[in-house]
């Protein structure tokens, strides 16, 4: 028995080398191009989670759409939530193209969401209790999203990078919309100021978690090494969290608000913000759909899915 390398395997290796050369050279990979399975699977997971998070993320804000306290605010938040749904749609289209060779469709994405196989972002499992929360989501959650998405604007996968360009442009408006709500509250009555302080206190931990664990030692797994290897992203979770602090901590403090972490400070020597770690075991529970609002929000999507089944059936006839 002669030990030979099959032609197929050789081709596979050659393909892989060629693929890595292309992304190292900053070329964009397109839908029909050859890509390693690991790359495809990583992208499907990342982009379908991103897309479905935009859609699930519309739900906490939707609670405040009718309640927005003026005609102008009503119009603003309606436009914002519509954009989020639009981002969801755009991203699911990108994910669908990647899933096609696997024989999967959007139907699979929705089913995986309902079964718990597809996770959505930790922040959207949280309760949006007050109008202050609606403002804070726009300001800080979208602000955090801008930071993580900007990190992927040059992603090696062309369709994702292009979708992100459009999404980021709109997210900037969202952050401004959120900031305008927050500014009005911060400059308002004592009750309004208390409302926004309360929102920051309740949301702080979720915002820290937004960027994900620093490394696999906290939660057991982390995809960040793979995504960096394939040039889907450049910075680590911790670097992104630090960028968020640098951008937003001065802004929060300048509004006369405080952070619910007395240890938070910038360590000049280390060149880093020092802060209290969130409870990562809680994070693991949240993304397993055991967060404060996970079940209720999934239930909304489930109702939409089952109640409208007759409509989908009618369209397919």
């Amino acid at each position, binding site marked *: 028995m002669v030990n030979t390398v099959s032609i197929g395997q050789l081709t596979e290796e050659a393909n892989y080398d060629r693929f890595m050369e292309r992304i190292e050279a900053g070329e964009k990979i397109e839908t029909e191009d050859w890509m390693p399975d690991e790359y495809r699977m990583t992208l499907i997971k990342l982009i379908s989670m991103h897309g479905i998070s935009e859609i699930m993320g519309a739900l906490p804000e939707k609670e405040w759409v*009718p*309640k927005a306290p003026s005609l*102008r605010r009503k*119009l603003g938040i*309606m436009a914002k939530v519509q954009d989020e749904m639009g981002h969801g749609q755009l991203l699911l289209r990108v994910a669908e193209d990647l899933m096609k060779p696997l024989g999967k469709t959007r139907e699979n994405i929705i089913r995986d969401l309902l079964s718990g196989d597809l996770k959505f972002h930790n922040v959207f499992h949280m309760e949006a209790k007050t109008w202050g929360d609606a403002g804070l989501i726009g300001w800080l959650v979208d602000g955090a999203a801008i930071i993580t998405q900007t990190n992927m604007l040059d992603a090696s996968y062309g369709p994702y990078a292009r979708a992100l360009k459009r999404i980021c442009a709109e997210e900037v408006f969202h952050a401004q919309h959120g900031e305008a709500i927050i500014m009005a509250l911060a400059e308002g*009555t004592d*009750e309004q100021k208390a409302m926004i302080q309360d929102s920051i206190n309740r949301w702080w931990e979720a915002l820290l978690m937004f960027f994900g664990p620093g490394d696999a030692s906290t939660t057991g797994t982390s995809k960040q090494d793979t995504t960096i290897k394939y040039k889907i992203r450049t910075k680590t979770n911790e670097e992104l969290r630090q960028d968020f602090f640098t951008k937003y901590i001065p802004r929060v403090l300048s509004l006369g608000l405080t952070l619910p972490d007395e240890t938070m400070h910038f360590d000049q020597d280390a060149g880093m913000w020092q802060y209290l770690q969130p409870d990562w075991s809680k994070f693991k529970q949240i993304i397993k759909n055991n967060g404060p609002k996970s079940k209720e929000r999934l239930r909304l999507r489930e*109702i939409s899915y089952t109640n409208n089944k007759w409509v989908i059936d*009618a369209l397919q006839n």
Partner: protein
Amino acid sequence: MTHTLVDALKDECYHNSAIELLFQLADDDFILSYRGSEWLGLAPHIEEDVAFSSISQDTMGHAAMFYQLLQDLGAGDADELAHVRSAGERKNAVLLEKVNGLGTYLAEPHYDWAFAVVRNYFYAQAKKIKIESLKNSSYQPLAEAAVKVSMELYYHLLHWKTWFTQLMDAGGEARTRMESAIKIVLDDLDGLFSLGNSGPELTKHSLIDSEDTLRAAWVNRMSPVFESVNFNIPEKFGMKNGNGRNGEHTVDLKSALDILGEVYNLDPAASW
């Protein structure tokens, strides 16, 4: 005779009529936009969620425009008019305040897409006819607003008409559900054309065409559509749950207004 804002402010009788009509227009769009926003995230598919929320946004924009015209006429602050007036003071058609289905938008929303399609389509067509009439309104600021609304309305109408004919033609369960929804909507459809007790005054001042003219135009525009989907349109429409133009409303409006004004009413004097 054309009236500018200044003219309207000088003629009390005309002024009152213009305010009356603007409340009907503003309240109609305000409440239907709310019903639309309750559907957010619950539409049959994501593309529809995006389209429907765009329509609800336009509709809220139209309400804001009409409330602003009221503010200009000295009827009060636009936000206050939208958020504080009680159900008895509202002039919207009852059809538009009806809930989307069982449950609330926050919990167990078992909404009826057939009802959403029929209500929105029939309303978009009625609104289109009114807006065409308002382009010739004697009140100049309203005639100008009508031109802007008209352009957006074209797309709303096209959108709902597409849904309507598609689901009517689908047969089976879809057809049955659509026919039940049509029945419910027709029961209160006449409220859309009503101009309320002050109707004759509004027409006398050439602010808008008469109820009969508006209704006839609607039937005229809709007949070919009904014919194309093999549905016989009844001779008469109802106002089963009251005439909203005269302040008659259902409990559905009260609970909607509580939600719409919840934050505003925490402190109406505050800046939000």
